């Protein structure tokens, strides 16, 4: 994670710190990078105007929950779910291994929505299962259980793909 610049206004510092995992979380929900980007921007611009973050007990979890709410409300207006864009990059891969990035992205896309969101929040959002549970409105045990299933499926899917490529 990039360090927060102390000289910046707090909201922009949070954007630099959590913008990337928030964007990934948004893409994992809606499947469209442009819509995900808009949702993240909307959350931060609203925060700049209202400064509601001051009242949040857990600002980080609040940000993730806000992004999710924006996208869920948007889904209600649209009355449809958009298919995930298959070729939109989600990650900067280690060692520029773009095949691995594609492998991971497709494995994530193959997961059910709830499991994918838990994995993104826990791995890249660095949130505890308690925080994940708060954001997704489930119990912490459910969040942990979904995570175990998801990780197992991810490993299998990625290993199978690597075997195919080898």
């Amino acid at each position, binding site marked *: 994670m990039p360090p927060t610049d102390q000289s910046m206004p707090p909201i*922009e510092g949070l*954007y630099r710190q959590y913008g*990337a995992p928030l964007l990934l979380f948004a893409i994992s929900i809606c499947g469209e990078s442009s819509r995900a*980007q808009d949702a993240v*921007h909307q959350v*931060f*611009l609203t925060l700049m*105007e209202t400064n509601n973050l001051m009242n949040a007990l857990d600002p980080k979890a609040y940000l993730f929950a806000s992004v999710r709410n924006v996208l869920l409300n948007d889904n209600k207006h649209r009355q449809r779910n958009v298919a995930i864009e298959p070729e939109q990059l989600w990650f900067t891969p280690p060692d520029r291994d773009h095949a691995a990035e594609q492998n991971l992205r497709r494995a994530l896309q193959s997961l059910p929505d709830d499991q994918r969101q838990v994995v993104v929040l826990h791995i*890249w959002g660095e949130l505890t299962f308690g925080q994940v549970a708060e954001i997704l409105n489930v119990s912490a045990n459910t969040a942990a259980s979904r995570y175990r299933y998801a990780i197992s499926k991810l490993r299998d899917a990625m290993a199978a793909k690597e075997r195919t490529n080898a």
Partner: protein
Amino acid sequence: MHDRGEEQFENYLRSFRPIDPEALPAAIPAHGATAPRRGIAIAFAATVCVIAAALLLITPPNARLATHRVVSEPPPEASRTNISTPTLTRLALDEHDAFAECMTEKARLQFPPMRSDESTLRVLAKE
């Protein structure tokens, strides 16, 4: 339980960095920031209106009439315009447009303004 393989796999997943979002669009100025500027503009406009109204009330009606007359009188330098007869003749023969313009100007200077109490029409009517 967290087995070693799962932990390694998690670390492998973490080695992928989520892509950075685009920069935030230019921040919308807070409502409080525009309010003072708007207030200053309104106060300035109100002050101008009050001063204009006060000037209208303070200035006596005669002064306003005098101003109107001064404006309607021909400019003093125009009255000094004097063209000799040979020049006028040459203009009449060679440059019709310039001659007509010259005559119009002369007529304007010779006769009083049309709309005042001493306008040409009124003077002729009296006679």
